[in-house]
């Protein structure tokens, strides 16, 4: 089981890195905010996972994950009906020390939730980047990918040190995932924000329904 988690984290580390770079080339990654959020998330996730072992049932966590999926799907569809945002509209557009601390704090809170629910964190980061911090969708997705790569790297390192990463399986999954990721990132970077919101909302709705049936 640990090898499955370690191998999956390995894929989660490499793939979003390529995806984030694809968004970065189009100016759709807030590098500084992403790094501060990632540092907070890595710290928070450790604490969250420790509490999760003691307090939360598997069933509750699965339901929480589905809830986040549908919340995200609804948010994206609502957002697609509203005017497109500019980068300058986003909070934390200027990263002074106050905003850095806010970013770090948000990262810690999301990290704790991520550790509690066992999710990679991408979904919650996307939700907060878009709804709380008012990032445009493309930038939210690009920055979320960067954060995911960094948080997954922290987990992968630990699993790899304990030889709980199947690198041969991981390599096959990663190569395929990078190809798929670059293709869909290319598509995402070409469509308008409204279209992207609808696409992403649709994907989350499908994943939410799939998870209900899989449970």
């Amino acid at each position, binding site marked *: 089981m640990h090898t499955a988690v370690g191998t999956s984290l390995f894929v989660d580390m490499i*793939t979003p890195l390529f995806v984030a770079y694809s968004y970065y080339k189009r100016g759709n990654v807030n590098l500084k905010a992403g790094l501060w959020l990632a540092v907070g998330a890595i710290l928070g996730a*450790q604490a969250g996972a420790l509490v999760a072992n003691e307090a939360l049932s598997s069933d509750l966590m699965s339901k929480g994950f589905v809830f986040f999926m549908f919340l995200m799907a609804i948010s994206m569809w609502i957002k697609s009906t509203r005017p497109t945002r500019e980068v300058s509209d986003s909070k934390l557009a200027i990263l002074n020390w106050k905003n850095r601390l806010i970013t770090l704090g948000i990262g810690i809170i999301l990290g704790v939730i991520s550790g509690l629910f*066992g999710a*990679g964190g991408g979904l919650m980061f996307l939700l907060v980047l878009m709804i709380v911090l008012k990032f445009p969708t493309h930038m939210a997705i690009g920055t979320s990918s960067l954060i995911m790569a960094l948080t997954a790297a922290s987990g992968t390192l630990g699993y790899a040190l304990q030889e709980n990463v199947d690198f041969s399986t991981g390599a096959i999954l990663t190569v395929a995932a990078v190809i*798929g990721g670059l293709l*869909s990132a290319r598509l995402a970077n070409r469509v308008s924000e409204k279209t992207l919101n609808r696409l992403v909302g649709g994907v989350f709705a499908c994943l939410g329904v799939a998870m209900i049936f899989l449970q």
Partner: protein
Amino acid sequence: MIPVEIKILIGLVTGLVVGLTGASGGGSRRASIDDDLGLFHAHCRRNQFVC
């Protein structure tokens, strides 16, 4: 063992989701690459950050 074709398919779907949404769908994928192809429970997934 999982056939290579299935691994490639899982990887492709993962990548498509990551590239489009910025989220990994890691929970569902992790369930499909368990060591012995069986499913494993959420209590294992939530340990992903604990090394």
